[in-house]
């Protein structure tokens, strides 16, 4: 999304633009394929969003989410979000009107008609119609501040001399080795909810080249997902539920307790952090029949165990100890028991590069690195510090993608 917005903005400023993506066409758009709504400030109700959400209120929410956020980025993000629906509509993006009665009430976010993949399709179509040249299945191996970019497609390497480069490769949530460095060895059991191409290679390269780091590698947005999810790219439907009204047991049969007893939407990330702390990054939600009914329809239905002994065998636990735990803390209506295995599902990581409001990458001394820009989740830790504020990732990607693209075009022509 950030790369697309940067490409569109730069192209509309007259620059010749290459959009290079490590992913194949079917996975284009990064994690935006799995997004649905974006947070925008607005003065009053419109066809897309009810009530009002002022720029000041958006900025305050951002400061609350991460008190260490860069004030310049916060102000820019909140102010520029106002124009975002209009600008995106101008690039062919369709939003879902409130009048159809199908979207949940949200005064802070606008909904994409059909979701993020539909938006990505529209942005690509516009970009290609404008003459942006798109290169898929192509990895960027190196970027120098002078704009020399080394590309690799299959076995073929080539070098491109660009006047400006916008890096929009997101975090490193698909890179299991880096996750293990940040979260410990059990991170091999993490599920990556988005694109398998978020390997953080360019993030690491920029940091090694002297870009100033921002945020924390171990501050990631993690929710509890079904352990049967695909290792990558499972998106929204793999999110697990039932933890607040069931009993959660870790791999060794010990109950996992969320001290806060979250039941609102905060429960997803609360349980993500809890299960990330469990041995082996694995836990099981045990429900009774009433708990299953409350779940509603699931992509991965719970497995039913007729009695406690069967459950103990399935979870490789001692039957006596399990029976005691269930007696003490289990749901009242079982057996039969209904079991959902859960793992941490990572959406994005919290380490990035520091940029100014135009997306220029800063070095350790606070100087900007000429010709080198970053946009999207690779610089989002400067705003969110790796924390989650619903609908904000898309807004950051679009606002700073657009700004970085325009600034890169200005730099290229200067």
């Amino acid at each position: 999304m950030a790369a697309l917005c940067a490409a569109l903005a730069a192209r509309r400023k007259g620059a010749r633009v290459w959009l290079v993506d490590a992913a194949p066409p079917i996975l284009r758009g990064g994690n935006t394929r799995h997004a649905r709504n974006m947070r925008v400030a607005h003065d009053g109700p419109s066809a897309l969003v009810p009530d009002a959400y002022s720029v000041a209120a958006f900025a305050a929410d951002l400061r609350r989410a991460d008190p260490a956020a860069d004030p310049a980025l916060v102000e820019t993000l909140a102010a520029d979000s106002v124009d975002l629906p209009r600008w995106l509509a101008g690039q062919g993006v369709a939003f879902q009107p409130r009048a159809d009665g199908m979207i949940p009430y949200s005064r802070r976010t606008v909904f994409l008609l059909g979701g993020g993949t539909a938006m990505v399709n529209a942005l690509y179509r516009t970009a290609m119609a404008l003459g942006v040249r798109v290169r898929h299945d192509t990895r960027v191996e190196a970027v120098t501040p002078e704009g020399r970019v080394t590309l690799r497609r299959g076995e073929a390497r080539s070098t491109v001399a660009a006047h400006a480069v916008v890096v929009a490769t997101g975090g490193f949530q698909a890179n299991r080795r880096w996750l293990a460095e940040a979260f410990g060895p059990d991170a091999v059991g993490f599920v990556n909810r988005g694109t398998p191409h978020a390997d953080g290679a360019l993030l690491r390269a920029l940091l090694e080249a002297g870009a100033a780091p921002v945020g924390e590698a171990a501050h990631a947005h993690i929710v509890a997902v079904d352990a049967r999810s695909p290792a990558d790219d499972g998106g929204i439907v793999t999110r697990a539920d039932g933890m607040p009204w069931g009993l959660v047991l870790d791999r060794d049969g010990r109950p996992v307790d969320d001290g806060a007893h979250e039941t609102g939407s905060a429960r997803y990330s609360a349980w993500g952090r809890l299960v990330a702390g469990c041995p082996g990054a694995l836990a099981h939600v045990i429900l009774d029949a009433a708990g299953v009914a409350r779940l509603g329809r699931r992509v991965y239905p719970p497995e039913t165990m007729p009695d406690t002994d069967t459950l103990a065998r399935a979870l490789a636990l001692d039957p006596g100890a399990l029976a005691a735990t269930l007696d003490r803390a289990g749901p009242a209506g079982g057996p039969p028991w209904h079991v959902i295995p859960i793992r941490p599902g990572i959406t994005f990581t919290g380490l990035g590069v520091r940029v100014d409001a135009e997306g220029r990458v800063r070095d350790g001394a606070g100087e900007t690195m000429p010709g080198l820009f970053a946009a999207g989740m690779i610089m989002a830790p400067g705003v969110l510090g790796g924390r989650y504020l619903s609908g904000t990732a898309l807004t950051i990607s679009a606002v700073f993608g657009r700004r970085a693209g325009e600034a890169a075009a200005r730099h290229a022509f200067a």
Partner: protein
Amino acid sequence: MPSPDDPLFEEARRQMTVCVVCKFCNGYCDVFRAADERPALTDGDLMYLANLCHHCRTCWYACQYRPPHTLAVALPAVLTRVRTRSWRRCVGFGPPGGPALLALVATLLVPVLALLLVPAEVLFAAHSGPGAFHAVIPRGPMVWGAALAVLAPVGLVAVAMARFWRMIGGGSPRAVWRALPDTLRAILALRNLRGGGPGCNDRDDRVSSGRRHAHHLVLWGFLLTLAATLAAAVAHHLVGMRAPYPWISAPVLLGTVGGVALLVGIAGMAWIKHRSDPAPDALESRPAEWTLLAVLGATAATGLALLVLRETAAMGLLLALHLGTVLAFFVTLPFGKMMHAPFRALALLRTTIEHQSSDRRHDRTTPPV
């Protein structure tokens, strides 16, 4: 009754479950709203949803789970399969060789009979004035043939519709009456082919209103030709006029405008189908789709040709050919793609009823301000 472990329905249920959880597409059409209200996704629910689906393919392009994703959601194809299955189940049988062969046989049957039974000097002579058509094919056989060819298939369709209506939940006469205006609007405006506003993915991932406009021409053209037939019956029985009717008369004007609209619409539909990305489609349903377009197109084309050439010696055989295409339309009616029309109308009626009753529930639970 459909068996609950039918692999087609199992697969449709698996895919639709992803949609019920995801909800991203719920701004596109009635299918997703209706699925939301029927999370059990029984076989009957799936047949209902499949017939609500207008096959606009928009959800396929928007889908984050479409193949090669492991969740492999390919709704347009699987709903096409369920839809076709629902027609077959409710009709109970189908012709050997499918609708295409049946259509071809029916189309050729009347000209062949005419060649065999009508003396060549009558068939290949120019006739003019009132009663000219019946000079070639006498009124008795034409009326009785038509009655038989129309009533049997229409009866089958009516029985199938009654079965389908029961299967998807039906509705009281009161509820039906109340839902009728909205349902007619949804049908006549093709509300579900708007893709939630900007249009549908007719051919690829770009949005367009081409298919909706082409389908409008087909639908309205078809209705006009039906009106022309009714007008002809009125002219014959009440006014005492005899076909062929003059150019400036209700049957000819309605039929001409309708026939031209049909032809243009069918050309548009065929062009879009021909140029469209086949990836979202169930390709085994293509023959039935092409058959319907061909039969409707042939009916309109022969009707217009008959109008233009009715004073010439070609009239006799053209009349027989036109009647053959009309016969083909009716005999294939219960077995081909045309079944989408009555079944979709019922599904839309049902969804309007459900929508209205949920609105009423909502109204009752809204506290007074």
